[in-house]
């Protein structure tokens, strides 16, 4: 296909503004997918994605329409995956920016506009959901105008009902430039996604920038330095369809017997060994996990199964890391690294679902840098591994710039939340008449507690959060230990600011008291900094526990109830004489939750 007939574009949108529905409708109208195969939201093909209504992995599909080849690249929609988004955008020349006609412009919409502009993309605005009774097109246009964007070119559509979708496709052809691609130079192909399955190995999603790539050729991945022979190249229709050659400007896939996504990471550049490109494409980053937590099997005998599961998962997720870890309280497990909280939840859910594992997952932690009195600096991603108080000279922790967009009515309560979360106010600007942007510098560790949930509840769901790393800053931090029945439970330790340690300790103990099941004996709970106990409570002993009446002699039902109660206890983690439920390990997240 000649370059002039190719259009590469993506769809970007704030969550729930209808990105996936628009993609579905495009596939349907262009007969890319037969109606009977049409499954709602075809592009989000992981169960998890469909359930949560978000895209986790990028997907691509080639659409033939009016003699053109339209390559649609779907992008992830969460801050945890912003690097992946940037690589998907780098593979495109244009973007459909979807705006909900009823919701109007949201934080993510604006962020997306900037992101698209950064990548020099031609933006086609699509005001979607015009069928909704609450749709307010003039307001959306006004909002656009306020941001200096010409609203006249915006297209109106209802992806749900299919109206305006053809116009969107025509605009893709008319307004998005064809790729500027040299077909004869040395090969440079951008990896914008990399997936693994056990039958085919790694399937790299690529955009050929210059040159061409055929089956049988020998390639080099410039960042990983790995060399392979190409087994197959092809395009997504959306099923994988082999082609003889992918040329500059085209989007497709590559298989080359790659056994691990780590050797073919998102953002890497593929070139040929025979005629090597002088330099890779710009923008590659080695993505590092930001958040760490311990993963332990509830049943210790599942340790090996968990290890296998983590290995399998890692094959398909270059951003996820793990290594062995031992906890005095929880036994053998793994320290796992994630891009953010959503990434962590996704991994946990996949482990439980795909591998049928019961897990204890400890509260997430950032990576602290601790300089000891000896003068050496250590990176510590696990509160339990902190040195003794007297060995610590200084501690630094990662800071982020938090960008919060919210209706002005909630400024007061959101600012209060930010202050409480150790935020330093930087800036406040009005986005329009009633929406405000706040900027705070905050410790990353505060963001990964339940900051986001509290933000949502304090703003009735109207506030949005985005953040950018700012580097490390010195903080007066201490390790708060939790003792259950006088035993220190290392997996419950948490790093907090000294000024709030006592308050957090008291609050935590108070909640643990209700979470940890009562025993036949009184269980003391303590929060301590070093040997200094800052809070204590008792879990009262059970007073009465008797199953009653057996109606009409239904004894087996009674036995099942007793078995269920007994089984319930077994699913908890046994620490000494006390069973600790998963909730307890997450309780440290919900700081001062209910105030």
């Amino acid at each position, binding site marked *: 296909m000649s370059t002039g007939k190719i259009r590469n574009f993506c769809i970007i949108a704030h969550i729930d503004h209808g990105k996936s529905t628009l993609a579905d409708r495009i596939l349907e109208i262009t007969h890319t997918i037969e109606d009977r195969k049409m499954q709602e939201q075809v592009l989000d093909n992981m169960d998890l994605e469909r359930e949560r209504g978000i895209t986790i992995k990028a997907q691509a599909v080639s659409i033939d329409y009016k003699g053109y080849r339209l390559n649609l690249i779907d992008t992830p929609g969460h801050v945890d995956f912003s690097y992946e988004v940037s690589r998907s955008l780098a593979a495109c020349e244009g973007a459909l920016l979807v705006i909900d006609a009823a919701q109007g412009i949201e934080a993510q919409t604006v962020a997306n506009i900037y992101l698209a502009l950064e990548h020099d993309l031609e933006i086609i605005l699509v005001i979607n959901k015009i069928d909704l009774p609450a749709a307010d097109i003039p307001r959306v246009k006004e909002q656009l105008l306020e941001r200096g964007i010409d609203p006249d070119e915006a297209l109106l559509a209802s992806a749900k009902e299919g109206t305006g979708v053809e116009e969107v496709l025509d605009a893709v052809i008319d307004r998005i430039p064809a790729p500027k691609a040299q077909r004869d130079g040395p090969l440079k192909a951008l990896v914008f996604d990399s997936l693994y399955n056990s039958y085919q190995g790694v399937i790299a999603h690529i955009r050929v920038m210059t040159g061409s790539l055929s089956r049988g050729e020998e390639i080099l991945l410039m960042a990983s330095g790995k060399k392979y022979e190409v087994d197959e190249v092809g395009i997504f229709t959306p099923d994988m369809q082999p082609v003889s050659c992918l040329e500059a400007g085209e989007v497709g896939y590559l298989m080359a017997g790659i056994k691990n996504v780590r050797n073919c990471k998102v953002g890497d550049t593929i070139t040929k060994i025979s005629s090597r490109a002088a330099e890779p494409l710009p923008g590659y980053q080695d993505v590092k996990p930001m958040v760490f937590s311990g993963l332990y099997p509830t049943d210790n005998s599942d340790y090996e199964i968990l290890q296998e599961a983590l290995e399998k998962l890692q094959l398909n997720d270059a951003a996820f890391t793990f290594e062995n870890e031992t906890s005095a309280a929880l036994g053998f497990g793994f320290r796992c690294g994630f891009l953010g909280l959503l990434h962590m939840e996704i991994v946990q859910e996949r482990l439980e679902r795909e591998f049928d594992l019961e897990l204890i997952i400890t509260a997430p932690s950032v990576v602290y840098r601790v300089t000891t009195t000896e003068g050496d600096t250590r990176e510590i991603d696990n509160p339990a591994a902190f040195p003794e108080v007297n060995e610590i000279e200084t501690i630094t922790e990662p800071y982020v710039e938090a960008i919060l967009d919210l209706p002005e009515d909630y400024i007061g309560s959101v600012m209060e939340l930010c202050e409480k979360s150790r935020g330093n106010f930087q800036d406040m600007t009005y986005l329009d008449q009633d929406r405000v942007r706040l900027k705070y510098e905050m410790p990353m560790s505060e963001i990964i507690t339940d900051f986001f949930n509290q933000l949502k509840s304090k703003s009735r769901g109207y506030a949005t959060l985005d953040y950018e790393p700012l580097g490390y800053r010195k903080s007066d931090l201490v390790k708060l230990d939790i003792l259950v029945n006088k035993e220190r439970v290392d997996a419950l330790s948490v790093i907090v600011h000294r000024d709030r340690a006592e308050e957090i300790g008291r609050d935590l103990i108070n909640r643990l008291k209700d979470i940890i099941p*009562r025993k*036949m004996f009184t269980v003391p709970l303590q929060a301590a900094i070093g040997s200094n106990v800052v809070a204590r409570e008792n879990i*009262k002993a*059970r*007073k*009465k*526990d*008797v*199953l*009653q*009446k*057996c*109606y*009409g*002699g*239904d*004894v*087996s039902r*009674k*036995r099942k109830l*007793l*078995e269920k*109660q*007994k089984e319930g206890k077994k699913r908890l983690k046994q620490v000494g004489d006390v069973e600790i439920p998963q909730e307890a390990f997450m309780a440290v997240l919900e700081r001062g939750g209910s105030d």
Partner: protein
Amino acid sequence: MSKFPRKLLWPCWSAVAVIDRNQLALYLHVPFCWQKCSYCDFYSRPAEPKIVRLYLNRLAEELKFRGPDWQKPVTSIYFGGGTPSLLSPAALDKILQVIRDNYRLAPNPEITLEVNPGDLQSQTVLDNWQELGINRISLGVQSLQQVELKLLGRSHSVSQARRSLAFLAKSEYNYNVDLISALPGQQAEDHLQNLVEILQYRPRHISCYNLQLEPGTPLAERMKQGLLPEISEEEDARGYQQTRQQLKKQNYQHYEISNFALPGFKCRHNLAYWEFRPYVGFGPAACSFNLRERRKNQASLRDYLADSPRNPEVPHEISRLDQQDLKAEYLFMGFRLLQGIDRRDFRSFFQQSLADCYSREIAGLKEEGLLAESGDKIYLTGRGLLLANHVFQAFL
């Protein structure tokens, strides 16, 4: 049929090492209610006359059809529900007649009718039941405080409860009163107040059950949504201890975790469950136990009636218990009795000694102060009565 038996009919079981299992307890489930109580997840339906008639015919068919399988002497008959007291005397008479015709009745069987206080508002009603041979009434009072009755969704009022109690007290009937404790927000004293008033009527038997929140019932849902105050384990335990003391002072024998009786008035029928004796149940959702298998009729009345009269067998499930389950059930039922279980009976039933099966568990529970031993008896201690589930679970 005799009137209220004045003689002690019941042999004193505590003196008998091995329980006589050559007898049968017979249960009839009447699945109709005036209205559904907020805490009840047992099967029942509104009593439409036409459906009641179909049910009675079907019950007669079931009684006749299953008779040949159950030819041990029947020592107790129990009409439970639902609300059996909404059946007419004629209907009750018909059922009893079918039983007499198809089962071997022991001399002077205990015949109990569960009664909703609203159904016992005249002396005539009571006379009719007595006439039919019903010699024991179990009165579902539950509480004598209107707010509590309302919370429980009971169809009767406090004044109806008092009126029915007055008739029973005057009649010298052998009767039980059911009370429910540990209601949301209830203090031990609230429950005690109910108990003290009940004692003025001097029932022969008192059952004090703490409220069980069955998932899915309106009460459990309201609790889950946080619409009701919490049920305090402390208050429940305190109320239980005070109930025990109060009843002991009044000469009631505490013979089962939740049951108290004046001498000679233990519930013979319920003892069959606790003593692991055979019983047979008729009607939807009724359970039977022949010492090896448990049978449960399907709960739905529609299914129960479906094949009548073409197929005399009603839909049911049978589960054969393995030795492990059988032992667990034997123990957690047996331990409910304050006299506990008898090692000799266990051995004769299972052909294995208790020590061979559970010596470690029993030693552990004795250590925890939940079980005690005396001679061949092993029984729950005072603490064990409060934490019985912990004991029961050790044997699962």
